[in-house]
């Protein structure tokens, strides 16, 4: 299987007034065509910045410090104009909040048509016609009429459908979805997830699915990468990750969630809080909160190493243990 997206040792730097911080530190990920890679972690773990780096969307004072991103077999140069258009044609992105992600003064039809026009270089008239088809494809009823609507006139779920229509216009080979259902109602989330998986099958897109919701990622992803404090700490198939977490952080996250069918008196939280970007521990970033930490953990940051079909960045990976309450 060839690789669609190949992130190698990605380090992202943000230059703040009092010096640089590194919210993404040496992340390596690979994604095959048609595959869904889940990227989970808590806020500030670097998952969104990793996505934005893939898309080449850098805000002020944000830059790739080290590492490279390969797409469809060739390295992407952030400065190259040709690579920028290669990226635009090959990738689409969906953001968390559709209400703010759509331009309030442009009609849905205009926005979808523009995305199609830029990706395919087609004429405006053809793009307008295609926009209506795309709105229909993402399940917006009466697409011809809705194409003339402004974002504020439609509901949150429909807005997210319109965002998806923009992202898949021109059939990109990679879809980056950053918390695409977080802002939506539960009963609508399921509809959007159904839509995404249908489109993925039809277009054959690879998908990088970013979320903080462990339960959700188990539903949609083939493989899951767990991020903590700017690093990938565990990589495994979705089934393995939930059945046999190997990193103490993954285990801790799973344990801290209440189950629908399990009566525990108390939840088991992870003690402490996520370290600040300015005060990263020298060794493993999770060591100060980890029940298994040794002196090595405090000194040496563990590398992500392969382990039984997955990979884990831990000096003392958890033994596979059977279900116990």
């Amino acid at each position, binding site marked *: 299987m060839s690789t669609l997206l190949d992130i190698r040792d990605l380090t992202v730097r943000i230059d703040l007034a009092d010096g640089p911080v590194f919210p993404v530190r040496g992340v390596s990920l690979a994604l095959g065509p048609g595959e869904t890679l889940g990227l989970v972690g808590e806020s500030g773990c670097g998952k969104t910045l990793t996505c934005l780096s893939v898309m080449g969307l850098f805000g002020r004072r944000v830059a790739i410090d080290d590492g490279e991103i390969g797409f469809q077999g060739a390295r992407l140069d952030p400065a190259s104009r040709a690579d920028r258009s290669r990226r635009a044609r090959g990738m689409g992105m969906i953001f968390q909040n559709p209400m703010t992600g759509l331009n309030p003064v442009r009609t849905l039809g205009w926005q979808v048509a523009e995305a199609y026009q830029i990706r395919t270089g087609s004429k405006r008239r053809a793009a307008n016609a295609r926009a209506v088809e795309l709105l229909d494809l993402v399940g917006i009823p009466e697409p011809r009429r809705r194409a003339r609507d402004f974002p504020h006139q439609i509901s949150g779920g*429909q807005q997210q459908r319109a965002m998806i229509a923009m992202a898949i216009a021109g059939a990109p080979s990679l879809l980056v979805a950053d918390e695409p259902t977080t802002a939506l*109602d*539960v*009963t609508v989330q399921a509809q959007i997830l159904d839509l995404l998986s249908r489109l993925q099958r039809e277009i054959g897109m690879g998908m990088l699915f970013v979320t903080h919701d462990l339960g959700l990622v188990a*539903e949609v992803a083939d493989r899951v990468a767990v991020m903590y404090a700017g690093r990938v700490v565990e990589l495994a198939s979705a089934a393995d990750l939930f059945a046999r977490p190997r990193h103490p952080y993954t285990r801790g996250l799973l344990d*801290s969630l209440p189950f*629908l069918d399990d009566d525990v008196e*108390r939840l088991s*939280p*992870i003690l402490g809080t996520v370290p600040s970007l300015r005060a990263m521990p020298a060794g493993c970033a999770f060591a100060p909160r980890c029940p298994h930490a040794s002196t090595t953990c405090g000194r040496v940051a563990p590398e992500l190493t392969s382990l039984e079909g997955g990979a884990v960045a831990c000096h003392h990976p958890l033994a596979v243990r059977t279900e116990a309450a």
Partner: protein
Amino acid sequence: MSAVRLGLGGPAIDHPGSTAAALLQVRGLSKRFTLPRDTLFGPRPELAAVDDISFDLAAGETLAVVGESGCGKSTVGNLVLNLLSPSGGSIRFDGEDLAAADDARWRERRRDLQLIFQDSRSALDPRLTIDCQVAEGLEIHGVATAADRAAMAAAMLEAVGLGGDLARRYPHELSGGQQQRAVIARALVLEPKLVVCDEPVAALDVSVQAQVVNLLRDLQRNFGLAYLFISHDLSLVRHVADRVAVMYLGRFVEVAECEALFAAPAHPYARALIGAVPAARSRHGRRVPPLRLEGEPPSPLNPPSGCALNPRCPFATDLCRSDRPALRRLADGRSVACHHAEALPGAVVGPDIQPARAVS
């Protein structure tokens, strides 16, 4: 009218097995908002945010209100706390009719009714250290001497895990979880009887949520608090609640014991909500199969006739489109507002011995 019709023994959702002495008794509670006109001289549109809601809450009990954004669940909390004034219905707290209470009486009562909500950062004054903010509530209510107040604040902060040096910090020097603990300490130092928790952990990171949830449960046990717990997170609700009210478009559609609801929800909307929780959030796989609803919640400005869920419900019949189902008691004690609750595929509850059907 509804309040009268429901009476106290009607299909109002009294806590199965509870005594009559509920801490909070809500009957026929409604809230309508009037909006600006659309046309020059047209009628002012009305929005029924909360429509004819009744429930009891006993001391030490947790009633969760779940539903999607805009269903009115936060409005219920605000009405109970008198942050909004109801358009109809009654709220009795500790045997006292709160609708009749004047401002002075409310100021006294306020101590017993506290609120913890989602955005802890905006709930704290950035210019005061948190021990001052915790003591401030006591001062407002004229409790104890200054020295005693400081001691009480310190003890409360200790109890929520913000003892020692942390207590003298400013809000911005605390993490999100610590800020939420400070908010909790400030609400609980007044020794309230009822706390409305409006999405209390939704803004926190997953690994920190569990800490705050544990804290809320410990404090409930220690102080005998009643919680009105408003949340959209069903697995969290399953963990903390004794009873759950499922809300859709301003009305309760199902009220049941927590365990019974999650084992087998009776209302199609409750089924859809619980069925939408990812399978990974159950240890032994889904018990409630997914039920896909069509479309999205309608605008409360323009609610469908009959059952509010009928345009989205796969089981809807002509009856659902014409008649709005009343909340009625089923055999196992839960209350459901669905014409076909017993007849739906997979229904676990048989028909009841004729519930006290209202004469309207």
